């Protein structure tokens, strides 16, 4: 070995080391110890503020119970809330604050699917686990690159919901003429291909597809077309206000088809339209008006006690399924932290796949499956239930007088 060779060896080693370092990239923030806080970006103000409030009620009450029993790993879990007003750009900004400034161990999401989708890359960059309890868009969990590692959901999934709704509509339609009515938003338009695929799989030829814009006050034209096409069952994909206006349009023309809806409809809708809402079926994961397990009853009592001005009866739980989802999500998180043994984001992410937990919505065994992004969703279609409006309340359909069964 020449002297020159000897002298260049350390340089070559250094260069190789640098290259390796560049290839591996900087040490992820996830490797750092995180704070015992849950950062949440949700709709505190704006048109969806009621959904944000319902999430906050469920999450804060669940945290009270956990912290009252000593917290997790000897520390209380703290909640840090940021308002995104339902806007994706603000959600991304909030995620950066939660992940980088607050250094929280986990982030929770709000109601809107576009916000959650906007977080896919920032969360992966920061190595920040995220848990959603509402935003049901398929793409939130099933990423186009097939490599979702950080986003978990304890909620419904639109692709599964569309299949479920089509099956329910088919079972309830008398003449087989089923139509899809959806709002002209990313959420509504995103569901159209899923509904069409589900209809094909279930041997249903959709008799109509109608849409409307947010803020529309009259849908008579769409309803006349569907009525004249002989439709007897509508699969609805919309939120409260426009759905109420759609019902008014149906009422004007004297048409009352069966309606099987995604979970955009809340008790606020029933309060706004009164008896017109009776009998409308809504897919969900949980109903607080049915027989409750001791755990669910305790959750309800705790929410009433903590928010006595806001939650007086079950009718005040405007997002019944989402609140139950959020309740379970907090306890799944606590279980995962115990398994992780440290406030460490990567360890927490890995531990999420080892959680087995019996919640109020479902028996999560396991909650998530590693390497299968479809199963980064904890609530499976088996847990979906149809509910129906009756006297302004969203009831289990078996508890309504309309002779319907799940």
């Amino acid at each position: 070995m020449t002297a020159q060779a000897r002298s260049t060896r350390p340089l070559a080693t250094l260069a190789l080391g640098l290259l390796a370092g560049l290839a591996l990239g900087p040490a992820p923030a996830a490797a750092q110890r995180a704070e015992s806080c849950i950062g949440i970006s949700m709709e505190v103000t704006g048109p969806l503020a009621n959904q944000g409030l319902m999430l906050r009620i469920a999450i804060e009450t669940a945290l009270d119970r956990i912290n009252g029993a000593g917290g997790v790993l000897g520390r209380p879990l703290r909640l840090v809330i940021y308002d995104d007003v339902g806007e994706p750009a603000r959600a991304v900004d909030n995620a950066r604050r939660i992940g980088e400034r607050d250094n929280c161990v986990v982030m929770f999401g709000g109601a809107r699917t576009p916000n959650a989708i906007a977080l896919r890359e920032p969360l992966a960059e920061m190595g920040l686990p995220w848990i959603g309890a509402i935003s049901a868009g398929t793409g939130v969990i099933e990423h186009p690159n097939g490599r979702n590692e950080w986003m978990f959901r304890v909620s419904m999934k639109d692709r599964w919901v569309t299949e479920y709704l089509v099956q329910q509509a088919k079972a309830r339609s008398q003449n087989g003429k089923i139509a899809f009515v959806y709002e002209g938003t990313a959420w509504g338009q995103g569901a159209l291909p899923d509904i069409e695929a589900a209809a094909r799989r279930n041997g249903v030829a959709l008799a109509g597809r109608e849409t409307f814009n947010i803020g529309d006050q009259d849908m008579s034209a769409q309803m006349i077309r569907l009525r004249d096409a002989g439709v007897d069952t509508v699969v609805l994909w919309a939120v409260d206000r426009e759905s109420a206006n759609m019902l008014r349009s149906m009422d004007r023309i004297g048409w009352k088809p069966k309606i099987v809806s995604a979970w955009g409809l809340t008790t606020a809708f029933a309060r706004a339209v009164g008896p017109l809402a009776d009998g409308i079926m809504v897919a969900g994961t949980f109903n607080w008006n049915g027989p409750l397990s001791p755990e669910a009853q305790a959750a309800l009592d705790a929410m009433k006690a903590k928010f006595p001005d806001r939650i007086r009866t079950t009718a005040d739980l405007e997002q019944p399924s989402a609140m139950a989802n959020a309740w379970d999500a907090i306890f799944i998180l606590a279980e995962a932290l115990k398994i992780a043994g440290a406030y460490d984001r990567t360890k927490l992410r890995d531990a999420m796949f080892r959680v087995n937990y019996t919640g109020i919505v479902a028996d999560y065994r396991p909650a998530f499956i590693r390497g299968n992004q479809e199963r980064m969703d904890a609530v499976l279609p088996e847990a979906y239930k149809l509910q129906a409006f009756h006297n302004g309340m969203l009831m289990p359909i078996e508890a309504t007088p309309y002779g319907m069964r799940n």
Partner: protein
Amino acid sequence: MEAVTQYLLTGLSVGSVYAMVGLGFYVMWTAAKAVNFNFGDIFMLGAVLTVVAMDQGIPLLPAAVLAVVVAAIAAAAIERGFVRPFNQEANAIGWMLTTIAVGTMIESATTALFGSNPRGLPSPLAESPIRLGGAGIYPQELLLPVALVLVAVGLELFYRRTMLGRAMRAVAWNRTAAGLVGIDADRITLIAFGLAGGLGAMAGVLIGPVVQASSTMGGVIGLKGFMVAIIAGIANARGVVIAGVLYGVSEKFIEGYLSTAARDAIGFTLMVLLLLLFPQGLFGRKEIKKV
């Protein structure tokens, strides 16, 4: 035929709302050569305040009157605080920004105080529709064209037969000259904005039982009311009424026979084309200034 009947009925109802909001723009413009760009929020206040008043146990009619009065006062206050200080010089445009800003504040405050959920505005006239074959309309919706005709006629009489109305016309014609003959132009403008606010709020109260009251209900209506005022020629009240009703009816036929999703795109394209062909609006007259 049922469909045509339905489109005519609902178009007439929706168009009457556009026309009443458009008349509000007309009243503001003729007095101040400025408008409240977020006038849709005054429309919204009419419905929301009625619900709030009913929550306090006040019956529907007094609640509606109270809401209209409060909204009119709010509209006048907007003129005093957010239009007048920014409309002192020729060609001033600061009021555009300030009225948009105050509208946003009103909407945010309403969301915070009233809630983000829409709420029903109970009215016995919106409980069951009148059916005409396979078409139908709520009696509440029939109130809208009736109210529109009364408002249009009332405005005409007000402008021609009352001292205050004549003073408004004088201010609209020449603000400086009106001042020289002893008319307090600022006061007249304040009253005009209040009057416009009352019209907008009344439209909100009348349609509220059918479409529910919510903090965001005024955005699109305000925009379309402004649009019909521009299409008509904002200084022509009769034109605004005709354009509003025609626009509402044409929207329903577009929804029925062309495309629901493209309704607004087609409507706004139509507006641009009309303005290209008639820069002063369909019923507007070219302003001639002697120099």
